């Protein structure tokens, strides 16, 4: 009885809070600063560097939103959130938007009263094994010991995969990525499983990277993307279309370097609308006309963000894969800007 009263109160306050937060966009403008929920530290995606400046793939999206809303990509405050605190921090209004490699799932979208507005990285769970294990497919891992982080969806995916394929495994549970890497290198487990992007980053920093391979099977869908509070649709539109603007910019070849030049010279109607030369698109969602132009100018288009933080050429060296534009066989597809 007491518990239900408490939970009821909590739910009621959440709803009230949701209503009271009706205008995140206005709040952000009034504050003059975007508060962005980020990771406490994930290689390539979001972390502070040696000088305390936040860098990474997710971080750049936050900066793009700040540039679009406030015209200045530096006006972002990053609040590090852990796996446990991230959604509550968003619900309670401590952060305006959460860009923290969070997987879009049914229950998070519905029960938690959150909205996933886009997918900025399509990830999936994979396996890494030592080359001399002589395995070339995850289905050959019968009887293997597998290092796995506890309390994550990867644990459930792993169980499902082995059950479906009628093979057995012994889990070696670890607390975090660094421990997993250590156990795996020390030979405590035959295979290490986590999101493929994480595996690539781990492999890139191993002393004998050439002796480890990432198996071809991807056993789960992990669409990662920015999250906003349910019910604040205008703010959701702002975040979603800022992201799409970065995609369209890549599609149309607009980059950080040439954005001003393109804006002055382009004949493409969609690019004109994108860069605020015509169409008054920004004001329709409460932004200025050059909002998207500012975003592109601050961080570059989607492809540039990808290349600078995690793409081929960086140490992490991830291929575009599913995250290539739809024109190049990937899944990144922006609706028309009109």
């Amino acid at each position, binding site marked *: 009885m007491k518990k239900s009263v408490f939970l009821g109160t909590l739910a009621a306050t959440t709803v009230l*809070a949701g209503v009271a937060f009706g205008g995140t966009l206005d709040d952000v403008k009034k504050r003059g600063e975007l508060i962005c929920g980020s990771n406490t530290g994930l290689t390539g995606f979001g972390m502070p560097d040696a000088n305390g400046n936040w860098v990474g793939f997710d971080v750049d999206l936050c900066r793009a939103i700040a540039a679009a809303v406030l015209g200045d990509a530096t006006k972002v405050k990053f609040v590090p959130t852990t796996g446990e605190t991230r959604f509550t921090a968003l619900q309670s209004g401590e952060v305006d938007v959460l860009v923290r490699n969070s997987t879009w799932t049914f229950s998070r979208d519905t029960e938690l009263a959150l909205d996933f507005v886009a997918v900025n990285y399509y990830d999936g769970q994979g396996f890494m094994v030592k080359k001399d294990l002589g395995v070339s497919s995850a289905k050959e891992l019968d009887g293997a010991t597998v290092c796995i982080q506890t309390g994550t969806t990867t644990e459930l995916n792993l169980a499902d995969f082995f059950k479906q394929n009628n093979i057995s495994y012994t889990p070696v549970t670890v607390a975090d990525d660094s421990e997993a*890497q250590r156990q795996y290198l020390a030979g405590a487990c035959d295979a290490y499983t986590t999101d493929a992007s994480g595996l690539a980053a781990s492999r890139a920093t191993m002393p004998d990277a050439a002796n480890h391979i990432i198996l071809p099977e991807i056993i789960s869908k992990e669409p990662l993307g920015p999250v906003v509070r349910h019910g604040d649709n205008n703010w959701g539109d702002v975040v979603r279309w800022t992201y799409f603007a970065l995609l369209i910019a890549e599609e149309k070849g607009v980059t950080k370097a040439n954005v001003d030049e393109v804006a002055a010279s382009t004949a493409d109607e969609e690019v004109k609308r994108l860069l605020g030369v015509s169409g008054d698109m920004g004001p329709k969602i409460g932004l200025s006309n050059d909002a998207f132009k500012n975003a592109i100018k601050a961080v570059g288009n989607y492809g540039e963000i990808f290349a600078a933080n995690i793409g081929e050429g960086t140490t992490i060296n991830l291929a575009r894969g599913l995250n290539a534009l739809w024109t190049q066989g990937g899944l990144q597809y922006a609706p028309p800007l009109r």
Partner: protein
Amino acid sequence: MAENFVRSQMLPPEAPPASQSGALSWVRENLFSGPLNTILTLLGLLSLYWLVSSSLPWWLNSVWHASSLGECRTIVAASAGEGATGACWAVIRERWHQFLFGFYPQDSYWRPVLALGLLFAALAPVLFAGQKRNLAIILGCVAVFLLITLPLGGAGLVAGLLVAVLLAALLALSQSRPQGLLWFTAIYPGLCFWLLWGGPIWTPIAALAGFVVLWVVFRLLSPRIGVPVAAGVGFVAAVLWWLFAMGPVVGTLAGLLPMGLPKVNSDQFGGFLLAITIGVTAISCSLPIGILLALGRQSDMIIVKALSVAFIEFIRGVPLITLLFTASLLLQYFLPPGTNFDIILRVIILVTLFASAYIAEVIRGGLAALPRGQYEAADALGLDYWQAQRLIILPQALKISIPGIVSSFIGLFKDTTLVAFVGLMDPLKGVTQIVRADINWKGIYWEPYIFVGAIFFVICFSMSRYSMYLERKLKTDHR
């Protein structure tokens, strides 16, 4: 008739037999006194050998200059051959400032350093009451520490001169009127807050003025309406001051005379700066609250007793992590939207409450250990409740509780690392995680832990040694 032989002088003492003295005998007595001990000694030596032989190369091959873990590995492989392992201390060299200060602005490092130095100056009269020699030693050490660190931390000339004048004044005061140093201790919290967070200097001054309001009201009213009521009214007056009068006053003064330091936000705190800020505040607030709670639990007044028991048992029944999550998540739901109640402040309050409950029980143990006669003697002398507690009961009870109190403090200080779970940058997990997230240092494991662990050891061990010193100094019985 046989001649009697009588020795006229003492024989010089013989050296004990070789088997009974010297290193050999010590070894035989202590390490090989029986079959079981012999086996244990051999096993101990074996494991020691194993431990040293397996980790020694790692320590010996330490690398200090490198810009990434990969570079460390290359250097180790080049100097000690392929397959050798070596510690990569370069990560500490590159990132030590984040372990110590988090994201605190680099050109302002002198501020936390100064706050730390002055912390010892403020603690000295409490730790070594009235001992002129010890006070001088501590203040001297503080001066030397600040002399070296302040210029490195980027302090300006003005700040340096002010600190020098302050320390000289404190030193003079410690030799003429050691009790006077307690005034510095009293204003230190305001000073420390101002140094760490910055802002106009009038904020801490106005906040301290609240205590003056409390004191004045208390002094004016206590002869007329009695001590407890006067204290209550004074407290209310002070709260009114803090809530309503302080803001405008600070605003006006800052407008008239803008003096202050650049503001630093709480989210820039991290590493040991964060751990020590939380730890020291919680430690110094939890002791008085704990004493009051312990007295409340022993009180005859039914409501006071019930409240104290309920508070203590509730807090002790809940894990610290739960309280931290409450601080970080739940409070936000109940506060009006848009309020930004500083996360560090929230955590400090909850950690203080947590520690107070434990301290209260430790002190209750001390109170319970006093013989009944002490209470009766105090009554027989005609002392009232507070006099009896202050002069007779608490000095003895606290002395008995010292080991328990200090061990609570040590535990509390180490518990500050748990704030990592609410997304704060504690030195052990928070900072280590961001360092590891850097692609250059990904995969590094032991070095950050060893570095942070060593600093924790130094701090906790010092606290423990001080408590032993205090026990010896206060020892008056003949046990």
